[in-house]
């Protein structure tokens, strides 16, 4: 009776689907029987429909062989012309032997493809097939050939979307790692450019490229990045951004602790400054490490104009950083706590504008900030076609109607609009988001304590920023720890002679730009 109840109550045992783990596969080797090999390979790869098995006979003796590959990952023209044709047709001309063929001869003089190697263990073979290689397996041999015929469909190289610039190169990364590496190599023909590849994720096994210039990048930082990447234990990731979040020193920081870019030119100049790049197959985002706040405030356009103009623009951008974070809070503090600070006329006109508004300045600011947040978020999500309509409607709702309806004062609209605009001048999108986030705590501090609250908030923020580190480099370097030599590309952008130096704070090994290369060449010579 009890056992019957137990049976009723107890969970039904689910059928176990055995997973093929790489460790198990490692010990399994190919056998001489081709049918065994094929069926085992198919089972290992879940018998998916897109696995193609092309049976064929090689040579005059008609030795059975088989090509196994995944349909959408290989270039079918290459397979036909460079693998199938020589194997089926040309092999007939081979002198008749004792019923065996020389596998080395196949490899060396028949298959006209650059990337080819022998394989015998299952883990290598499965991974290779899954990454777009063709596997040739021959009856009577316990070795097969892995032939590279990868072909990925992807979009063409387009213009950068989130980091547009007026001048300079207009190319951006795509989803294919090979193409992206090509974009970098094309701009940087330095034999010292080292690109190390790692497989990321137990399931995804995507390629992660770590690039740096030997002799420039601090070897300690490079080693540390590699160590942390190797330690990662995960199924797989979509983009290098996520890898970045896992290997950083301060994963909870609201400030971006890595620089994300889709511009190859930015990557190249970062590499030449001795920084390290991470790029994952399947995503167009390159990750640059280490990073500091001044680096995030640099824009590509800064380097294409006269240094005086660029410095002016950059300083105004830094001011925008403050406006974006502090402007609404300062307005509230002055309007509610110290209106006496303002000149009498301005204070009077502000008061006149606010007559009839039912809310306090604080509530008014919170409402308007929230509206702007809605608009910004809607702008990102909406399809491009509707986007314009919404921005007009939203703008009108915020600007005209809210004021006319007497819900908010016109000055508040100016304040909030200016703040939102200022946040878009920040070159790094994530940094802009951080300022957007910080606005709210500052508004709350200003509501409760006025100017004192803002000062306290600012001191906390400064302390927090000073404590941040990106791979041993202080986030505010070279502002603090102060390094005058590096200021040529911080708040201002120095004239070109000044640009000829690499930043010292990144612990770059060679400081002079062209000189170092000359010395290195002299050493080699």
């Amino acid at each position, binding site marked *: 009776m009890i056992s019957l109840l137990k049976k009723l109550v107890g969970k039904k045992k689910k059928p176990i689907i055995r997973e093929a783990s790489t460790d198990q596969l490692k010990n399994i080797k190919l056998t001489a029987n081709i049918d065994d090999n094929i069926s085992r390979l198919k089972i290992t790869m879940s018998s998916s429909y897109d696995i193609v098995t092309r049976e064929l006979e090689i040579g005059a003796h008609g030795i059975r062989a088989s090509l196994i590959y995944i349909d959408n990952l290989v270039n079918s023209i290459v397979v036909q012309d460079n693998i199938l044709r020589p194997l089926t047709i040309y092999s007939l001309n081979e002198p008749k032997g004792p019923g065996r063929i020389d596998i080395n001869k196949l490899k060396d003089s028949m298959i006209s493809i650059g990337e080819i190697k022998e394989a015998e263990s299952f883990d290598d073979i499965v991974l290779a097939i899954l990454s777009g290689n063709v596997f040739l397996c021959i009856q009577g041999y316990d070795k097969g050939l892995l032939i590279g015929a990868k072909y990925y469909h992807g979009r063409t190289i387009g213009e950068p979307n989130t980091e547009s610039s007026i001048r300079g190169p207009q190319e951006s990364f795509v989803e294919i790692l090979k193409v992206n590496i090509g974009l970098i190599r094309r701009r940087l023909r330095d034999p010292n450019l080292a690109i190390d590849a790692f497989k990321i994720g137990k399931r995804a096994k995507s390629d992660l490229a770590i690039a740096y210039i030997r002799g420039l990048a601090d070897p300690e930082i490079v080693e540390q990045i590699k160590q942390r990447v190797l330690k990662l234990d995960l199924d797989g990731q979509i983009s290098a951004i996520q890898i970045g979040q896992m290997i950083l020193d301060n994963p909870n920081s609201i400030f971006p602790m890595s620089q994300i870019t889709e511009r190859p030119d930015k990557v190249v100049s970062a590499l030449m400054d001795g920084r390290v790049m991470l790029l994952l197959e399947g995503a167009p985002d390159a990750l640059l490490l280490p990073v500091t706040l001044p680096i995030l405030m640099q824009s590509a356009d800064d380097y294409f104009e006269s240094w005086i103009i660029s410095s002016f623009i950059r300083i105004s951008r830094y001011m925008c950083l403050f406006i974006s974070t502090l402007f609404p809070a300062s307005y509230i503090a002055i309007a509610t706590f*110290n209106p006496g*600070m303002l000149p009498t006329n301005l204070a009077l006109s502000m008061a006149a504008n606010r007559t009839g508004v039912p809310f306090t300045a604080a509530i008014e600011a919170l409402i308007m900030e929230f509206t702007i947040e809605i608009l910004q978020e809607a702008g990102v999500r909406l399809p491009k076609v509707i986007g314009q309509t919404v921005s007009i409607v939203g703008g009108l709702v915020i600007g005209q109607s809210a004021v006319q309806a007497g819900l908010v004062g016109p000055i508040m609209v100016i304040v909030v609009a200016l703040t939102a605009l200022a946040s878009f001048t920040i070159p790094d999108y994530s940094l802009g988001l951080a300022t957007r986030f910080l606005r709210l705590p500052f508004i709350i501090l200003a509501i409760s304590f*006025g100017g004192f609250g803002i000062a*306290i908030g600012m*001191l906390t923020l400064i302390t927090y920023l*000073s404590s941040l*580190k990106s791979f041993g480099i202080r986030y*505010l370097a070279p502002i603090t720890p102060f390094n005058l030599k590096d200021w040529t590309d911080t708040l201002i952008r120095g004239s070109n002679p000044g640009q000829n130096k690499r930043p010292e704070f990144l612990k770059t090994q060679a400081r002079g730009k062209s000189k170092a290369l000359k010395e290195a060449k002299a050493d080699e010579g």
Partner: protein
Amino acid sequence: MKDDSLRPVQIMTLTASAIFGVDILLVPQRMARIAGQDGWISLGLGGLLSLASASLIYYLVSLYPEDDMPNICIKVLGRLLGRIIMLPTLLYTFIYVALSFRIFAQALLTFLLDRTPIYAIVLLMLLVTAYAVYKGIYTMASVCDLLFPLALITLIVLVATTISQGRLDYLRPILFDNSDKVLKGVLPGLQEYTGYSIIAYIYSHSQKGARTYKWYMVGILIPIIFYMLITLVCIMNFTAPGLEGVLYPTLTLSKSIEYTPLFMERLEAFVAVIWISIVFASGMAYYYAASRNIAVFFGVKSQYERYIVFAFIPLLLILAILEPNVLKSIKQITYLKTIQILVAGFVVPLLIVITLIKRRSSIKK
């Protein structure tokens, strides 16, 4: 990841930041009361003395490049005697934090926030300071790096805009029948610079070398110059007898700035906001010293040391609001500084002598 060490320039900003602070609000009034229109001369003489005393402390800590003051006390005098000799400094640094925030909160009430309860102001200041100390000495140095230029610019603007309004006549007669008062003002003058002893806590983290000493001296010279300037300007604006009735002359001075092209009309609220950062930086240095003293005194393990900084907050808050009369608080802070002068004048030479004797005898052995 290896941590960097404090650069010589950072020693300068840390020292200057520690010396500035709430005292700069009070200096002119205090000095004018003691030495009249010649108060600035006393300040200068006191400054010279402070340079000498600072060099002495620097010499002591350079004998122990790996230790800071509390550790040196224990090393030289043993566990018990070292703790006893440490106690006055411990109390001084600890109570100073509370009192300076208390005095500053009163100034804020007068100039910026008139309805906020004083404990809220002190509590917020304490929280931020504790947070900075919790983040460690290198972060604190970076914060000082950022805040110091701000303080310097404010002071320069303040002096530059008000010096033309003042009248030179108020400074006269210079040293006429007043030399005894001026000499009497030298020790109180020295008291204003007691923040220089911060070197005893930060030297072990610095890059050692002659440049460190040079910048340390610069870090003391800058406050000396600005204290003298501020006192001069205050006397020129308010006259020495008039100054005695002004509690926060430096802030009152900023009230008189009216610069119409700027869209701010009355700058004193703005100056008060900037002053928050100056007082914060100095409080931070003292808070750090206090936490180091307490950690060594009670033998706190180094891994817990950074967490105990938050434990002081309630006690400091009570200390701060215990005394409702701010004038008494100001008096108390002056007494406290006397302790520091005694420590710097007697304990430091004593420690040096004992160390040298010990080392000599060990060489002989």
